[in-house]
C-alpha cells in the first residue's frame, strides 16, 4: 500500500512537469510586450530596459521556463503584471474561498444525489425513477452560469431571501453551492442507482432477504455499503471537477476565488497571474485524483496493486 502511494506520487511528477511546460508554452508564445501593459504612458527606454532585465524577459525561453519551474518549486509564481503583488499571495488569499465553495457544492451534490439514486434504484422503472433520472440529465444539461442567473432572479429579486452576490457571510454561499452542486448531483444519482442495482443482484442480498429482514434494512445495511465504492471514488474526483467548475460560479456570484482571479487575469492580460492560477488548480486536480485512487484502495481491500 505504502509503495503504491509512493509510486503514484512519483508518476504525478512528470505529469505536473509536462503540464507546466504546456501552460508555459501556450502563455509565452504570444507576441506583446508585458512592459507596455504594465506602464501605459510614455516611459524612458532605460526604465523599460531595467524592468525587462529585472523580469529576465530577454533570456531565452528555455531559461525562463526552468526559472519558472525552479521558482514554482519554491512556492514563487512571480509577480502579477497588473496588481504588482506576489501571485502566490494572491492565490493563497483566494484559495479558502474557492475551497469553501467547492466543498459546499460537493456537500449539496451528495445530499441530493445519493438519496435520489437510492430511491431511483429501489423504485426501479417507476414514475419516480424516470423523473429522478430525467432530473439528473437536466442537471447535466443546464448551463451553470444561466442557472446562477435564474437563481439570482428568483431568490434575490422575486423572493428577496438571499443576497445577490458577494462574499461576506455563510448565507452568500447558499446559492452558489446549490448551483455548483446541482449538476454533479445528477451524476452521483445515476452512479448510485446503477451501482446499487448491480449489488442487489448478489447472493448475499438474497440471503439477507431470506432471513426475513425488512427490505429497507437489506438496502441500508447490506446493499448500500457495498454499492458506495464507485460513488466514493467519483466523489473524490468530483471535488477536483468542482474546483475548476467554480470558475463560472465565482464569476456569476462575485466570489473572490481562484476562478475569478483566472478570469480577471485573462481580461487584464496578466500572464503570471493566469499561469499561477492554472498551475495551482491543475496541481490540486491531480492531487484530488491521487486521493481518489488511494481512497479506493483503502475502502476496498480486495483491490491489489503491484
Amino acid at each position: 500500500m505504502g509503495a503504491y502511494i509512493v509510486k503514484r506520487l512519483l508518476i504525478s511528477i512528470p505529469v505536473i512537469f509536462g503540464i507546466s511546460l504546456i501552460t508555459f508554452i501556450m502563455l509565452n508564445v504570444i507576441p506583446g510586450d508585458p512592459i507596455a501593459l504594465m506602464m501605459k504612458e510614455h516611459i524612458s527606454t532605460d526604465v523599460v530596459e531595467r524592468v525587462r532585465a529585472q523580469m529576465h524577459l530577454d533570456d531565452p525561453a528555455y531559461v525562463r521556463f526552468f526559472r519558472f519551474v525552479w521558482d514554482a518549486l519554491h512556492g514563487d509564481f512571480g509577480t502579477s503584471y497588473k496588481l504588482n503583488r506576489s501571485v502566490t499571495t494572491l492565490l493563497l488569499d483566494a484559495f479558502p474561498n474557492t475551497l469553501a465553495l467547492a466543498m459546499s457544492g460537493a456537500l449539496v451534490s451528495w445530499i441530493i444525489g445519493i438519496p435520489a439514486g437510492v430511491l431511483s434504484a429501489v423504485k426501479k422503472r417507476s414514475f419516480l425513477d424516470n423523473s429522478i433520472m430525467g432530473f439528473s440529465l437536466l442537471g447535466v444539461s443546464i448551463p451553470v452560469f444561466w442557472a446562477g442567473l435564474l437563481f439570482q432572479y428568483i431568490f434575490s429579486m422575486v423572493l428577496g431571501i438571499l443576497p445577490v452576490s458577494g462574499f461576506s457571510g455563510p448565507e452568500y454561499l447558499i446559492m452558489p453551492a446549490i448551483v455548483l452542486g446541482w449538476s454533479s448531483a445528477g451524476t452521483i444519482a445515476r452512479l448510485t442507482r446503477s451501482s446499487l442495482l448491480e449489488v442487489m443482484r448478489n447472493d448475499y442480498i438474497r440471503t439477507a432477504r431470506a432471513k426475513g429482514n425488512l427490505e429497507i434494512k437489506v438496502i441500508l445495511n447490506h446493499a448500500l455499503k457495498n454499492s458506495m465504492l464507485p460513488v466514493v471514488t467519483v466523489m473524490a474526483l468530483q471535488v477536483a471537477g468542482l474546483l475548476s467548475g467554480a470558475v463560472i460560479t465565482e464569476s456569476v456570484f462575485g466570489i473572490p476565488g481562484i476562478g475569478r482571479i483566472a478570469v480577471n487575469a485573462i481580461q487584464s492580460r496578466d500572464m503570471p497571474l493566469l499561469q499561477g492560477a492554472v498551475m495551482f488548480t491543475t496541481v490540486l486536480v491531480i492531487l484530488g485524483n491521487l486521493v481518489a485512487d488511494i481512497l479506493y484502495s483503502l475502502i476496498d481491500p480486495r483491490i491489489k496493486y503491484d
Partner: protein
Amino acid sequence: MNLARNLMLKKEVIEASDELVKETFWQDVFRSLKKDRMAITGGIVILLFVLMAIFAPWIAPHDPYEVNLDNQFQKPGLEHWLGTDMFGRDVLSRIIYGSQISLLIGLVPSMITMSIGIVLGIVAGYFGRRTDFVIMTISDMVLSFPSLLLAMVVMYTLGASLLNIFIALSIVGWAGTARVVRAQTLSLKNKEFVEAARAVGVKPYIIMLRHILPNCIPQLLVLFTLEIPGSILSEASLSFLGVGAQPPASSWGLMVSNGKEFLFNAPWVAIAPGIAILVIVLAFNFLGDGLRDALDPYLKQ
C-alpha cells in the same frame, strides 16, 4: 390441413429469421432507438433546431442586428415575442440566428476532436510500445487539465473569436476520444481476423482503417453524440466569461452574458437564450443516452 399449416409456419419462421439476418447494424440500432421515447423526442428537437438554423432568415420575425434605441427592453408581447434587449434588438430573432452558431460550435469541434482522437488512439493502440507511451502520456496531461481552464488559456493566447473557440475546444477534447479508441484497438488487435489480415501481409494502415475502425463505430457514435452538447456548453461558458464569441455575434452564451447586467429589470434578455441552450443540450443528451442503450450489445462486445 395440418401439413399445410405446418408448411406455412415453417415459411414464416424462415422468413422471420431471414429478416433478422438481413437486418444491418443501422437498422438494428434504429429499431431499438424507435422504442425509446426520450431519444425520439431528442432527435425531433434537434431536427427542429437544424431546420431553424437553416431557415433562420425566413423564420426570424425581425433583423437580429437592427439596433433601435427607442425600442429598448420591450417586454415580451405580440410584436416581440421574447421582448427586446438593451439595443432594442428582437430577442427571438437573435435566438433563431444564434442556433446557427450553436450548432456549428456543437458539430465542428466535435468532428475535429473525434478525428484527432481516432487517429492518435488507433495508432497508439496498434503500435503500442513507445508510440503508445508518448501519445498516452500527452493525453493524460491534457486530461488532467480542468478543461474549461485549458480552453481559457488557449483563448488567452489566440484571442477571443469564434474560430479560436473551434481550436480551443479541439485542443481540449481529443484526449478522451483517443483513450476510448485506444482501449478498443487493444482489445481488437489480437483477434483472429486482425491476425489473419496481418498474416496475409495487409499493410498496417489498411488494417487500422478497414478492420479496426469499423469495429469502433458504436463507441464513437455515442461519444460523438455526447461530445456535441459538451462543446455547445463550453462555447456558451467561454462566451459568458467574455473569452468566446464577440459582439455583435448572436451566440447564446454571449446573449446571456450581455443580458446579465439587466437581469432585474429585463430578465427575458438573459433567461430566454439560456432556455435555448438548455433545450438543445438536453435533446442531444437524451439522444446520446438512447443511442447508448440501443448500442448496448455492441458496446459490451
